[in-house]
């Protein structure tokens, strides 16, 4: 059985804090440890920021996020109806280069890939996009938890 938590926000940067708060609360409900919750807040914030800035690009729209615990895997799904923004098309930042030589940007997508076990992007039939983020072995095992209690 899986537990699902959902939130829907208007596509505006002022809602990023609300998104991070949602990820924190759902992560806690699923027994995910604080470091992983911190990483997931970062990853979802970066993904939602990209949708707002590059997908909706100033247009109005909504972003739907759901968080599920599939066994011990945390699965976060982000859907929008914006223009497609495929993270795979973003060039990786040159983290080894000196700051003066580095281009700005590209770090969000790098963080999404680095901090998740899998990030799967697809265009939805008709209109819209879906990004699913997987983090393995982080959701508390309910049986074990019950046993400990």
């Amino acid at each position, binding site marked *: 059985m899986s537990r699902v938590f959902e939130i829907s926000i208007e596509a505006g*940067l*002022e809602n*990023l*804090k609300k998104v*991070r708060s949602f990820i924190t609360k759902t992560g806690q409900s699923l027994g995910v440890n604080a*470091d992983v919750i*911190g*990483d997931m*807040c*970062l990853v979802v*914030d*970066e993904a939602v*920021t990209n949708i*707002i*800035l590059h997908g909706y690009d100033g247009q109005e729209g909504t972003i739907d996020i759901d968080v599920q615990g599939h066994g011990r895997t945390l699965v976060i799904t982000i859907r929008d109806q914006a223009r497609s923004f495929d993270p795979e098309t973003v060039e990786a*930042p040159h*983290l*080894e280069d*000196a*700051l*003066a*030589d*580095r281009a*700005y*940007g590209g*770090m*969000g997508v*790098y*963080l999404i890939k*680095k*901090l998740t076990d899998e990030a799967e992007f697809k265009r939805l039939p008709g209109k819209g996009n879906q990004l699913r983020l997987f983090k393995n072995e982080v959701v508390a095992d309910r049986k074990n938890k019950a046993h400990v209690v």
Partner: protein
Amino acid sequence: MGDMSILVGQEQGNVAVTVLKIEGDIDASTFKDLQDKAAELVEEGASNILLDMADVKYMGSAGFRAIHAIANMLNKEHEEGMYKSKHVKLLNPHGEVARVIKTLGFDSFLEIYEDRNAAIASF
């Protein structure tokens, strides 16, 4: 709008150091405020900036973009290659903020201090 505030202070070490005490979250909705405040101070003559991160609860890639821009504003010698910025340094980042600094490799390019006096004396 953004849930971030910046308190500006001046300290005198070997040189004048402008301390920006940042409180709150640095994300895509707030990073420009930090970048603009630093640009304004540089315009007014600040040439050494210490970013006090002790009360920053969250920083995403937008925050790094702002710090990167500040480092470039202050790189008046136009140094190239591998160097740590001599003119922008960090004080007391912690928790998730400290971890993401490492993940993005910014600790290779920025001096990070835990002690305020040591940070000011280092400029």
